[in-house]
Each structure stands twice: as structure tokens, then as C-alpha cells.
């Protein structure tokens, strides 16, 4: 199968669905003629023009609220935040309106909306362009949250998002955008709430999120040379979260580490840990461990930036410590 990048795969999903569904439109700053700061919409403006590729003023709250009204009345908006930190000005529309309208209307109004943007630390982007925020949307009911780690998942999860009825956060780690992988040319959907076991092993289970997936996989290949077989799971979506697959793995390995670049407190690792505690306590041979980025705003300077993310040494140590427990 041909290999394409994460960005190309996601754009392919968008392109295919825009051709099929004339109610899809994209809003964002520079997503029109410019094709998106990250090329998310490259080439689409020429095909579909300004009503479907809508460059906006810098009004994140405004266009998110606007898209809510559009989604409620038959359209299917895709909000392209470029960098997801800009989402924060629209939290009122997201948490008080978009996540609640299907519920409040007893299912009579749908809220088909994709909210996409780049997350993650890297490139000395500093604190206003390095956030991730997904735990916030897992905490609040009413959102689907997709966190693909490779081109195949990116295309499949975005296609599902573009064809369902729900508001979906589709989060793209900026260090994954240029990674390549095999992706079918035809359209396909991936279900939400179905984790991928990317590597089988018996010594321990590592649940890795987003950019941590390739990092962890690479380290586990190294560890395998020392005879340590680590099972690696990518949840792919955080809401819903596939706890079943994680529990099954822990039943086998007895050990669990959750590796996540963003903040620990009330994060995904905490939630997975608590769920495995509740449902898999007797399977545990060691305490569940979490590895997270430092609990601090993201600094600019490369020496500081590197210090706040879990690097190769930290991940390796966390896995070795877990196995040694």
C-alpha cells in the first residue's frame, strides 16, 4: 500500500467526505486559499470556494458558536483551530452548548461537528502554542475525543467523525504530522472506543498516547533485545475509552504504565489507573505507573522544553522500574 503522511491522510479523509457531503464546510484562519497553516485544507478552496472553505477573522469563540448553530440546522462544520490552544476562548460554546444540545433537546437536534487542531510540545513553540487539553474534554460529558498516532488511524478516525452525529475533538500532535504510513486509498471508518494493540508482550503493558506511541514503540524494540517483551496499546480515542482492551492486557502482564506527554493531575493516566484499579485490581502485580510531562507551563528554550517532556531515558527508566517492581 502507498505510504502518505499523517497530514495527507487526514486531508484525504476530509477531501473524500467533502465530495460526498455538500453540507460539510470548514472554518478557520487561513484555511481558504492558503490551504491551512498545516496544509490541512490544501487544494480544497480551489474546488469548493469560500462558502465551504471559510477564512475567518480571529474570533475563535465566534466561529465555534456560529458552527454550533450551523450544525443544529443541517450543516456539518469542521472547525480548524490550527493550534488547539486557541480553542480556549470558545470553551463556553463548547462546554455549555455544543456538548449539551443533543441531550437538552432529547436527541431531536444533532451536533455533527469536528473540532481539529494541533497539540503538543515541540519546536520551541512556547506556552501559548504547546497545549493538549484532552483531559478537559474527557471530563465533560458530550464529546468524542480522537487522538490518532499514525496516518492510518488519522484517516479512519476523521472519516468516522465526519459521518457521525456528534461533536468530535480531533487532535493532531504536531510532531506526528509528517510521519508516513500505509493508508488505503478508499474511504474507511474506524470505530471510536477501540484501542489498538501495537505490540504484544508479556512483561508489562504500556498505554501510550499520541507522540508517545512511536517513542514507546522504538524503546520497546530496544528492550526486546534485553528479553523484555512489552505490550503497547494505543487507545486511539479517549472518549470513549477502550478500557476492555487495557484490562485484558493487564490480566496477562500484571503491570501497567501510562505514558502521556501532557499533564498528570486529573489526566488520562489517572483515569485509566483508576479504572484498572476498579476492574482489574487482582490482576496487578505492581502499582500502576504514570509518566507525564512536568506540571508546568511550557517553556521556550530548547533546554527547558526538553526538560518538561518525558524523553527516551525517562520512558526507558519508567518501563524498567515497572518491570522490576
Amino acid at each position, binding site marked *: 500500500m502507498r505510504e502518505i503522511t499523517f497530514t495527507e491522510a487526514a486531508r484525504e479523509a476530509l477531501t473524500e467526505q467533502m465530495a460526498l457531503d455538500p453540507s460539510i464546510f470548514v472554518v478557520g484562519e487561513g484555511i481558504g486559499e492558503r490551504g491551512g497553516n498545516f496544509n490541512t485544507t490544501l487544494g480544497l478552496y480551489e474546488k469548493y470556494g469560500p462558502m465551504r472553505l471559510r477564512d475567518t477573522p480571529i474570533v475563535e469563540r465566534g466561529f465555534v*458558536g456560529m458552527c454550533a*448553530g450551523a450544525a443544529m*440546522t443541517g*450543516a456539518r*462544520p469542521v472547525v480548524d483551530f490550527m493550534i488547539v490552544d486557541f480553542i480556549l476562548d470558545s470553551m463556553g460554546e463548547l462546554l455549555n452548548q455544543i456538548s449539551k444540545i443533543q441531550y437538552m*433537546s432529547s*436527541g431531536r437536534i444533532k451536533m455533527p461537528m469536528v473540532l481539529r487542531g494541533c497539540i503538543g510540545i515541540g519546536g520551541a513553540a512556547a506556552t501559548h502554542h504547546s497545549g493538549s487539553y484532552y483531559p478537559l474534554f474527557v471530563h465533560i460529558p458530550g464529546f*468524542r475525543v480522537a487522538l490518532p498516532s499514525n496516518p492510518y488511524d488519522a484517516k479512519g478516525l476523521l472519516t*468516522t467523525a465526519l459521518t457521525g452525529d456528534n461533536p468530535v475533538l480531533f487532535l493532531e500532535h504536531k510532531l506526528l504530522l509528517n510521519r508516513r504510513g500505509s493508508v488505503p486509498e478508499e474511504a474507511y471508518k474506524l470505530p471510536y472506543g477501540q484501542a489498538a494493540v501495537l505490540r504484544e508482550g508479556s512483561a508489562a503493558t504500556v498505554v501510550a498516547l499520541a507522540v508517545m506511541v512511536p517513542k514507546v514503540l522504538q524503546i520497546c524494540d530496544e528492550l526486546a533485545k534485553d528479553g523484555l517483551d512489552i505490550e503497547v496499546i494505543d487507545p486511539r480515542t479517549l472518549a470513549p475509552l477502550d478500557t476492555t482492551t487495557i484490562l485484558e492486557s493487564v490480566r496477562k502482564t500484571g503491570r501497567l504504565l501510562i505514558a502521556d506527554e501532557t499533564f498528570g493531575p486529573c489526566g488520562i493516566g489517572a483515569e485509566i489507573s483508576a479504572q484498572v484499579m476498579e476492574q482489574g485490581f487482582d490482576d496487578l502485580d505492581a502499582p500502576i505507573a504514570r509518566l507525564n510531562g512536568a506540571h508546568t507551563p511550557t517553556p521556550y528554550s530548547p533546554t527547558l522544553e526538553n526538560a518538561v517532556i518525558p524523553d527516551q531515558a525517562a520512558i526507558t527508566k519508567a518501563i524498567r522500574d515497572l518491570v522490576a517492581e
Partner: protein
Amino acid sequence: MANEDIALNSEQLLALYHMMVLIRRTEEQLARAHQMGLVPGPCHTYVGEEAIAAGVCANLREDDVVFSTHRGHGHALAKGVSPRAVAAELFGKATGCSQGRGGSMHLFAPEIGLMGTSGIVGPSILQGAGAGYSFKLLASDQVSVAFFGDGAVSNGAFHEGLNMAAIWDLPVIFVCEDNMYATEVAFRDATRVQDVAQRARVSYDMAAVRVDGNDVLAVHRAAEEAVARARAGGGPSLIDCKTYRARPHAEGMRDGGYRSAEEMQAWKERDPIAAHAAWLIEAGHAEAADLDAIEAQVNSTVDDAIEFARASPFPDPSTAADFIFGAGG
């Protein structure tokens, strides 16, 4: 009372009267029910402002949409939601228009274009613009109406929403209900410029008009123009309606202190229903008996609605977490 160039026939003129009385009586009964503990949550009535919802919504088709506020009973009724469905919702009953999930501030009847009232100030403006975007995108001739109070005018949603509707020429009618107060904060303290229509014109280059919000014919005429403009692809409009709420901000709250007895009295004398009644008679569209008949009919409708609400069952607790998600991913 504006009476030049009335293009409406007597039936239509009486329908406006009927709607205003229907809103008034429903609100009065809901207020009473609230006092009796039958409405378990908050209740913001529309008494005194009926001419706006009635005048605007008379111009809408069933498939046009309305986005409303915390003070939305009047908009719901004027858009065609039955008094039964509104009353039952406020009583927290399964037969309410939101099946008991919403209450006063979350009325939904999307089948007939009531896309929701909201407990948060501001979003109606943005969502109203968004429905306009849908209609333009899908090449429909539906129009969208966003109601909001003077309290929303200083909010960023006003600025962002009006601007988007203007630059993209969306079929939206923004209706500002300036009743001079946001809870107890006076509009004159919230901004130095209370001429909302002028701001819409100068800052967003939007068609905008200021009307007496207690004159149902003035509101109707402004809305008729705005709806026609939107439907014809002429873009958005703003109607700045000056009005006054006759009851406290919400039922059970005090009403003195922040506004004077004289002010309240002066506005009482400008009651929109009484004014329209007088005009109907004077202009020969009705006799007192016709209006009495409407009144009687409304009273029985509203009595029935309250009785329906009272007799309806509460929702089944096991459904409390239903409908959070629709189909697909």
C-alpha cells in the same frame, strides 16, 4: 402607535393581539405556579415585552428558526410551541417540550424551529448566525432569528456574531430586547452608547433600525422588512427594540431598589397589549367584544395548559442520562 401603511388585514392584526395575550396569560399563570412551588426551578417572565416576540415571529415560517435567551417563554409560544408544552416543561414534566430536561431556560422544539432558549447570555447570537450560514450554504430560503437582551450587547458574542453575519451576508435577524436592565445592572451603566441600531450600522455596516418595542405594529413592520431582506439574500439586519420588563428579573426576586416606582408606572402606561387593543378598536379592526372573546379563549387555553402540566407525569429517572450522543463516532 404606528398606524400608517398597515399592510395587515384585521385577522392578522387580531392574531398579533391573540399571541400577545396568550403570552401574557401563560406568564401570569406560570408566575403563580412558581409561587405555589409547582415550577421547581427559575422562571423569567416576558410580561411587558410581548409585542416583540409576537411582532417578529408573525413573519416567520415554521421552518425558519429562532434562538432565544433565558427569557424565552414568549419566543417559544410565538414560534408555535403549545402552552401545554411550555407549562409542562416548567413544571418539570415528561410532556414538556424538552421532556423535563430543560425547564424555563432550555426550551426546545426543533420540529417547528425553536432551536433552544439558553441559560447563558450570548450564544443565541452566534448560533443564530450559524443557522444563517447553514441556510446560505445549503441554498435554502429559510431565515434565522437571534433574540438577546441589552445585557448581551456589551458581550463579545454580539461583536463577533454581528460581524460574521455582516461580512458573510447571512440571512439572520438580530433582535435586541433592550429592557434597560440586565438583572439589576442598568444598560446605561453597561455601555455609554445605548443606541444599538446605530452601533450595528456604524461598526458592522448592517441594516439596523430602532423601534418602540412596545408597539407590536412597529416591531412587525421592522421584522417584515428584515425577514424579506434575509430571504431574498440581502443579508442580516438588526432590530433594536426598546421595551421594559413588567415583573422582577426572575420570579421570587425583588423588584425595587434599582428602578423607581415612577419609571415602572410610566412603562405600565405603555403596556403593549393595552395599546394594541385600543388601537384595534380605534382603527375599526375590532370591537371590545372581539377582544373579550380572544381573552376568554386564551384563558381557557392557558387553564388547560396548566392543568395539563399539573396532571402530567414526571420523567422516568432511568432516562436521566439518555440522548447525550447521537449516532456514529
